[in-house]
């Protein structure tokens, strides 16, 4: 708001005369114009416009500044706003007259009629304006391109030299040397190694999401030959359960779900989504090189056979994304729905593969990273040329046609049969019944389908000003991000440009792709990535705690042909991974958060591993691999990855997943943050699911035991994979009393209660 002094016309005039250029002061007509500006127009602009359209505004709305002549002469994102002398051609007039709803300004209410008339007069006079201070910042200048050479994540990956360490006998491999060097720099030593019982439990839960069986524990503990650990790592990496575990980690990143979000006028299940889920599981089990993993998921439908036949499933990453819908009521709603859908693809792909928050550049240039809005629409344009194939037949057209034909025949015969039945035409009835039986016998089998995508065009998109698709700005050519590909990289030429985008991401020279993947793998072994913000490597993300280790692993990944299993080996064979999870006061004093990795942190199991473990130790896990989603994790005994995930919380099963920090599948997740809340504990204490597992465990563990001591020893061995401690046995026998199996009034027997205690205990719930 102007001060009272400045709004007084007389003072204003004096001020103008004192500051205006000599030529103006000596020209009476010009002086009059300026006095008019200062007394009438400037106060209006200050009052109604400056809040959003001046250098003080943040952001400067619409890129338009009305606090200087060069400001409005330059115009805003949508172009010129004032045509001097021509009020009717000036968008400013349209705005203040409130004739166009999209352009109505000021936003808090229409100005008084006389004031609108003053603005018309001012423009008619040629919009005299003495405010010569030029805009100091243009939008393009806001991007700090030097970050592409300064920020660590944009630097090429090179092989760092392995550091020298003082305790040279401790490191088992390169990973250890990088870790120990950091520890030694803070005068810390790693804690001791974990016991072999702990190690096999840790490794099994990590790689397969299941605890080792007592027999597996015994074999490993007894194996004193060299290379026992390495053999165990290889055996577990080769287990089909490995893909079920690590595939699920990836599904978090790509916001996998078995349906679309329910709205008031739209609900779409995704009945074939599981094919993508199974594709991911298989890709991990087959150790599909990561660069191909990237390309298949972004452009598998564009590859040549034989890759294409699986590729059309792999692009489920795109096809299963959020589809925002509008009922078509308002054009704004339709535009918002489309822009949200595009944003889902841009966001999932860029945070998922590159750990860049490109989505932040949707309405304005990225505030912190070198990502201009045009780059956002360069990528959005690719997905704008990508169409959705709702139920793509995964067979040849002939097979599909045969199936459709046989189905049609069956339908037709059934109808005729109905008619004949009603007409009481017995001879016809018999004939039709025979034909129908034949039709059933010869009918082609139902064929598999997938939710897939295809290219639909190759048009560049226009920048949507302020993120509004109804306000198109300049063209944004489809191409890769300038922060990674250099300024003004070549445009993508083929179809939508998806395949070129995929290859740009999978390019070994891309500084982010390998680092991001390495970090995600590390995160799931240590509970936290070397970069804590696993989906944001931008300038506002956390810097790496061990930058050289990150680079060494990224280099190794590329060097080994993008083998994820080899990456696991590099990490798992380190002594760092094999550290105990115990703490000491002095370590806590120096590094309470264990950022330097002096121990292996204990990790609470996610819901998948905890539930699957309960099923496993109670002897009821159904190990069937793959196939359509099953309904409820409370009822079924399949592994949790095979339970349907809904984008809305619809079922008790969904509620349980969310209760245990399962990510909201409407948006890609960088990794779960475990919470600890009472409702989770109520599940452990009271849920029929846990109680049922306790009953099953109780009968399994009691079989063939003679004494209470033996039972306790047996169940502790099954559940915890170790020998029962004397104190534990004492507590247990005290609890079980004389009659461990007595149950009155349908209550759990003490023995069943004891088994439930083990399933709900911290030791069982945490990966050691």
């Amino acid at each position, binding site marked *: 708001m102007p001060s009272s002094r400045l709004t007084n016309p007389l003072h204003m005039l004096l001020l103008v005369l004192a500051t205006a250029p000599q030529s103006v002061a000596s020209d009476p007509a010009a002086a009059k114009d300026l006095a008019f500006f200062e007394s009438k127009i400037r106060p209006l602009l200050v009052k109604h416009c400056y809040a959003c359209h001046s250098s003080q505004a943040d952001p400067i709305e619409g890129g338009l500044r009305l606090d200087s002549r060069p400001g409005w002469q330059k115009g805003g994102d949508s172009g010129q706003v004032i045509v001097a002398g021509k009020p009717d051609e000036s968008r400013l007039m349209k705005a203040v007259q409130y004739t166009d709803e999209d352009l109505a300004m000021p936003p808090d209410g229409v100005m008084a009629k006389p004031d609108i008339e003053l603005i018309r007069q001012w423009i008619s006079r040629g919009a005299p304006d003495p405010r010569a201070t030029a805009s100091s910042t243009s939008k393009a200048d806001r991007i700090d391109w030097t970050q592409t050479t300064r920020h660590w994540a944009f630097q090429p990956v090179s092989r760092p030299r392995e550091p020298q360490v003082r305790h040279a006998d401790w490191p088992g491999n390169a990973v250890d040397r990088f870790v120990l060097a950091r520890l030694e720099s803070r005068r810390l030593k790693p804690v001791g190694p974990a016991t072999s019982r702990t190690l096999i439990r840790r490794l099994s839960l990590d790689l397969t999401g299941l605890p080792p069986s007592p027999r597996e524990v015994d074999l490993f503990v007894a194996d004193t030959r060299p290379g026992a650990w390495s053999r165990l790592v290889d055996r577990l990496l080769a287990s089909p359960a490995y893909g079920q575990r690590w595939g699920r980690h990836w599904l978090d990143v790509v916001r996998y779900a078995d349906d679309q979000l329910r709205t008031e006028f739209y609900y779409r299940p995704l009945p074939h989504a599981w094919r993508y889920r199974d594709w991911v599981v298989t890709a991990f089990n087959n150790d599909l090189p990561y660069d191909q993993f990237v390309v298949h998921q972004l452009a598998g439908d564009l590859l040549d056979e034989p890759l294409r036949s699986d590729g059309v499933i792999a692009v489920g990453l795109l096809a299963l994304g959020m589809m925002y819908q509008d009922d078509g009521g308002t054009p704004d709603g339709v535009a918002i729905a489309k822009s949200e859908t595009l944003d889902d693809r841009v966001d999932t792909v860029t945070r998922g593969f590159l750990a860049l928050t490109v989505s932040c550049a949707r309405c304005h240039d990225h505030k912190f990273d070198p990502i201009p809005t045009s780059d956002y629409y360069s990528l959005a344009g690719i997905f704008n040329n990508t169409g959705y194939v709702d139920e793509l037949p995964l067979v040849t057209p002939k097979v599909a046609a045969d199936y459709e034909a046989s189905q049609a025949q069956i339908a037709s015969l059934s109808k005729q049969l109905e008619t004949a039945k009603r007409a009481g035409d017995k001879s016809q009835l018999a004939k039709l019944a025979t034909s129908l039986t034949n039709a059933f016998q010869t009918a082609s089998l139902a064929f598999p389908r997938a939710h897939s995508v295809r290219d639909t065009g190759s048009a560049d998109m226009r920048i949507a000003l302020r993120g509004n698709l109804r306000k198109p700005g300049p063209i944004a050519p489809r191409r890769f991000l300038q922060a990674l590909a250099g300024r003004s990289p070549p445009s993508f030429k083929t179809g939508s440009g998806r395949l070129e985008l995929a290859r740009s991401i999978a390019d070994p020279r891309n500084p982010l792709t390998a680092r991001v993947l390495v970090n995600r793998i590390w995160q799931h072994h240590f509970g936290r990535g070397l970069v804590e913000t696993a989906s944001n490597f931008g300038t506002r993300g956390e810097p790496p705690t061990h930058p050289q280790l990150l680079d060494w692993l990224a280099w190794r990944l590329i060097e080994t042909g993008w083998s994820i299993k080899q990456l696991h080996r590099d990490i798992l064979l380190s002594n760092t991974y094999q550290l105990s999870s115990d703490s*000491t006061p002095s370590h806590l004093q120096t590094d*309470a958060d264990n950022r330097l990795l002096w121990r292996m942190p204990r990790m609470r199991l996610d819901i998948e591993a905890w539930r699957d473990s309960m099923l496993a130790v109670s002897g009821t896990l159904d190990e069937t691999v793959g196939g359509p989603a099953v309904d409820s994790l409370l009822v079924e005994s399949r592994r949790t990855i095979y339970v349907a995930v809904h984008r809305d919380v619809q079922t008790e099963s969904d509620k349980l997943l969310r209760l245990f920090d399962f990510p909201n599948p409407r948006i890609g997740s960088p990794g779960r943050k475990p*919470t600890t809340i*009472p409702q989770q504990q109520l599940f452990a204490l009271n849920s029929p699911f846990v109680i049922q597992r306790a009953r099953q465990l109780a009968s399994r563990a009691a079989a063939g035991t003679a004494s209470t001591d033996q039972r306790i020893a047996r169940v502790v061995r099954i559940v915890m994979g170790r020998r029962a401690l004397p104190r534990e046995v004492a507590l247990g026998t005290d*609890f079980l009393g004389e009659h461990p199996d007595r149950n009155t009034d349908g209550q759990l027997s003490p023995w069943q209660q004891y088994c439930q205690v083990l399933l709900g205990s911290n030791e069982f719930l945490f990966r050691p």
Partner: protein
Amino acid sequence: MITPWPISRRHLLSQGTAGIGLLGLADVFGHESPGPLEGRAPHFAPRAKRIIHLLMNGGPSHIDTFDPKPLLAKYEGQRPSTVDLKTQRKTTGILHSPFRFQQHGDSGLWVSELFPHVARHADKLCLIHSMYTDIPEHISGLLMMDVGANQPTRPSWGSWLSYGLGTENQDLPAFVVISHNGDPRPGPTGWSSSFLPGVHSGAFIDTYKLDPKRVLANIRNPGLSRGSQRRQFDLLQRMNRLELNRSGADRALESRIESLELAFRMQFAAPEAFDISRESKATHDLYGIGPQPTKGVAGGRKYGGFAEGALIARRLSERGVRVVQLAFAPDIPWDDHTDINDHRPKAFECDRAIAALLSDLESRGLLDETLVLWGGEFGRTPTTDVTANKPGRDHNHFGFTVWLAGGGVKGGYRYGATDEFGMRAVENRAHVRDLHATILHLMGLDHERLTFRHSGRDFRLTDVAGRVIHDIIA
């Protein structure tokens, strides 16, 4: 060794049962690590400690309830340019309000005949007549009201308050959402904690056939008596402490031990809090609670059971639950496109209970520190929705009314205004985000400082907007 329960961490420390581990941890951190719901200091002195949101989902008409427009009768059937704005559906000429308005209380606030009981509290109400929102569609409107955005990927304001302030009662969830016989739109998205920790998400309770003993999932053990469970629970916690002893200090292990304690207590606290049979007959009468919850249908939309919900809301709030959202009924009951007279049975269903809630809070000395918010996701058009034979009103996002009462707001006060027909907020316009900023302010939080870092940036409830409406603060 006999260990009493509940076992607090303080108790553990004093007993030394956890050995060097816990003591070491206390030494290192110098304090007890706070649980996620532990009460936290606000940014400045709050005017309200708790909030009850009476969500009038579906969009009640402001011009038939709290914002009278006498000119509507004069211009009946006409379509002056002021009202010629595009809303969701096609509308024609102006439709007068079939409801009579009167001034009430010392303040002389206008309230229509739809809310005779609420009208008696006119001097407590702070009407905001100049509300507006972005999109005239229910899900977008309700999302804006619930989570402050049109995208379904943001945390609800109840979650933000839980995150910012924690709770006053560790035995109950910090944020409870109540509805009767179904979800209000847009369902769980409306009380989701989104990227905030899951502990802050609203606990949804459907009061239809509510058995207080089963109010939360798994609240009771189906196979154990209370005494047996106590014994089992003690064993569990001893085993957990044995494990902690072996491992040395570990924050994760400890916080689960604490969480188990809370859960154990919640088993008894939650059923008690939801049990309205513990209230006197006089209180039941005050709220208009009969032997069975009411139910009805008007304009094809069901409603009922609101009075019971209002009393539960009071019980929860009284016990320190930070945020209670009480939906009028499932889905979008106030959406009277086809006959504005359908507002009558719905208002009848909630009027008395809302008035009772205000009286009840006041007589218990709770109203000063409890903020009550009444309102829908938008208002309704002064023009006629022509989708049915009877005259109804379309969604109106250009202008509508909400009201606040209690905790720190001026009573008998009107803020802002719509134009002469009630089509559009024109004076002191207040976006829903301004309302959110004001609610946070009243609860002692600066909406620009209450942030959470997610996917590379600091998020706020009010995104990059929101302004505190200081004029309405007492």
